[in-house]
């Protein structure tokens, strides 16, 4: 394994920023300090003007394997992740067949061993994600699974969800819910609001998310279990999280870059790349979600990277698949949003914060917190110090780039951010001590 010296960057550990070189040997950070000498046979990476931090961790990634390899594979998602600065991806279990057994977990792990970044597996809560009976949660936990979800659908049956939460208390497992009350949401395609009424497109009301979020908070309160709310999209859901915390409920939540930046206004032209579930809400929701990210109500930014083959997006809007890719744009979108308040061509979302605060918040919400939620903070999420596993990211905060869907590494091109100019660029990604992205390109 080659040795690496990252020179001249600013090392980020939360809000703690220090100019230091980082020396990596045999997959570990072995030295950290100013003006380190370069050992023989060691590759040097110039990080002047850049930030150096633990690699990003994505709690929510659809890698599509097995079952939908035409859209993405574990290998291609990992490559896209590396380019986006991720050193750890949590693979969602809504594959075909679903990841709902220790055997399936093992199969994914074997494939993941060959991926360029670390891939963790989320297991299904219910068998086949059908929402009828519990999957073998303890057996999957023994195989290393820490986070469980039926993502793509919420667990509709309240008694079943209560049992899942109760069951998960042993082993400190996390039950992650895709909050969507099916009887309110089924048949809908975009947010229930001004645009859906205008276009005559059937809609998904915000209450579909909020009613289930509230229900699950109450069930988590009753059981003392750990609950994670996936892709929060409405301001009311955040208020429910705040209420839950006031009650002492162990709840965490995530938001996606697209729910922060994009709103139902972006759906007016019925661009299939803007179709996602939960749907893009209102600008007011974007702004309140951004406040929630700044005030710590939101623990993590997750991509909900959902690649789809072009055929599934070349249909009448209502027949198109839900989902957007996000691994390669997440850092740029979030950093641009935080430091500039919006992205050029979009509405203002928040009051910009300074670069150093922004990178600290990025580290906290895109690396450290998701690593904790995913149960991998011994390997991922920092802090970057001697002895830490070398999952490292180098970003240039000043570099600007324009998203070009044709140049993304994901197998699918359904990004909603095509042609947007972003500030902040992933320069190098080091996964398990190995340089996998250099100067923005995969090695």
């Amino acid at each position, binding site marked *: 394994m080659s040795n690496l010296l990252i020179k001249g960057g600013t090392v980020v550990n939360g809000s703690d920023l220090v100019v230091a070189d980082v020396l990596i040997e045999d997959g570990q950070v072995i030295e950290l300090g100013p003006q380190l000498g370069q050992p023989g046979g060691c590759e040097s990476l110039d990080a002047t003007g850049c930030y150096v931090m633990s690699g990003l961790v994505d709690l929510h990634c659809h890698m599509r394997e097995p079952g939908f390899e035409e859209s993405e594979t574990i290998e291609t998602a990992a490559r896209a992740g590396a380019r986006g600065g991720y050193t750890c991806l949590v693979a969602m279990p809504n594959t075909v067949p679903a990841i709902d057994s220790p055997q399936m977990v093992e199969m994914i792990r074997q494939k993941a061993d060959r991926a360029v970044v670390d891939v963790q597996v989320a297991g299904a809560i219910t068998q086949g994600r059908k929402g009828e009976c519990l999957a073998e949660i303890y057996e999957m936990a023994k195989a290393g699974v820490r986070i469980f979800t039926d993502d793509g659908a919420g667990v509709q049956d309240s008694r079943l969800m209560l049992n899942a939460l109760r069951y998960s208390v042993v082993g400190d497992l996390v039950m992650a819910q895709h909050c969507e009350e099916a009887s309110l949401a089924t048949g809908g395609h975009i947010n229930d609001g001004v645009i859906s*009424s205008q276009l005559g497109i059937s809609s998904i009301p915000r209450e579909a998310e909020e009613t289930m979020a509230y229900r699950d908070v109450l069930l988590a309160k009753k059981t003392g279990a750990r609950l994670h709310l996936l892709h929060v999209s409405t301001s009311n859901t955040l208020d429910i999280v705040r209420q839950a915390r006031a009650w002492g409920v162990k709840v965490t939540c995530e938001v996606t870059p697209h729910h922060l930046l994009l709103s139902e206004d972006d759906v007016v032209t019925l661009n299939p790349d803007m179709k996602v579930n939960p749907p893009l809400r209102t600008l007011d929701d974007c702004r309140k979600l951004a406040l929630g990210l700044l005030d710590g109500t939101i623990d993590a930014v997750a991509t909900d990277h959902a690649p789809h083959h072009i055929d599934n997006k070349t249909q*009448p809007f209502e027949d198109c698949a839900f989902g957007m890719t996000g691994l390669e744009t997440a850092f740029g979108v979030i950093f641009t949003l935080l430091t500039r308040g919006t992205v050029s061509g979009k509405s203002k979302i928040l009051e910009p914060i300074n670069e150093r605060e922004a990178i600290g918040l990025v580290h906290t919400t895109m690396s450290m917190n998701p690593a904790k939620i995913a149960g991998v903070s011994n390997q991922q999420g920092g802090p970057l110090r001697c002895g830490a596993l070398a999952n490292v990211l180098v970003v240039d905060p000043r570099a600007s780039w324009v998203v070009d869907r044709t140049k993304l590494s994901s197998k699918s091109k359904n990004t909603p951010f095509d042609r947007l100019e972003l500030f902040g660029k992933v320069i190098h990604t080091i996964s398990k001590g190995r340089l996998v992205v250099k100067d923005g390109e995969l090695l």
Partner: protein
Amino acid sequence: MNLISVDDLTNEMYLELFGLTEMFIEVSTRPIPKVPTLRGKTLATVFFENSTRTRLSFETAAKRLSADSLSFSASTSSLSKGESLFDTINTLDAIGVDFLVVRHSRAGTASMVANWTQAAVINAGDGCGEHPTQSLIDCATLVRRFAKPDLESLDRSKTINKYLSGLKIAIVGDVLHSRVARSNIKAFTNLGAKVTLVGPPTLIPDNIESWPVDVCYDLDQVISEMDVIYLLRMQNERFDESMVPSTLEYSKNWGLDMARLKRLGPDGVIMHPGPINRGVELTSEVADSTQSLILDQVRHSVPVRMAILAMLANLIGGGHE
């Protein structure tokens, strides 16, 4: 130039369409009701949803303009062999057509198809989205009834939003699922009319504060103030949930019978885009009364659609004047 939405129409286009409509109404009275306007052009009706009026009138309009027409139905085409919409449109494009008249059960389909083809696309109804040609038929019917412009002195100085100024129109029924309503609200308002939406709260869309309409759930409260009652059919094929308890309760509260017609007054008129459900949104007596413009709407469907095709042909170039 495509016609996807009422929003595509400029004031000049309304005027031109009303003028052309008068001309083609005259053509329709001739022994040989045919003109060479679209000779050499090909029109394809591409219908993924059932239709009687729209398809027949478009094909008749094409024939009377001397265009060749071909007809595509989802049920008898390669769609049933698994061909995608994209490939179907590509195929028609490769065959070479000048007009694609598209109907589909999904909103937004016509505008999507327009991105895939060289032909001029006319939206003949897209799910709950829009139905602009029906809207122009309804506007022409109202203009002829209430504004009565004649071809010679079509008043071009008169701004378009005065044509139906002061006219009070209630659109009654299942507005939520109605593409006709979505188009007509815009078109009637563009012509200066005042639109009120009437129906059970479950069938009136939410979040319409920005729409230029009044909303009233009680038909009896507003009927006497109205000039036009525009009735809609319950679009049962577009939803399977419980929106109203029963058709009986619906017809008692929002159906038009002779008693309500009397309160509308002798100058009030009834319209309906068809197909009508007798005994639900209106009784047979109302449908067949002298105050009903329903058959006028159908009569105007061919000349108005001729006018639309002729206008689009001019705009895309190559129409024979």
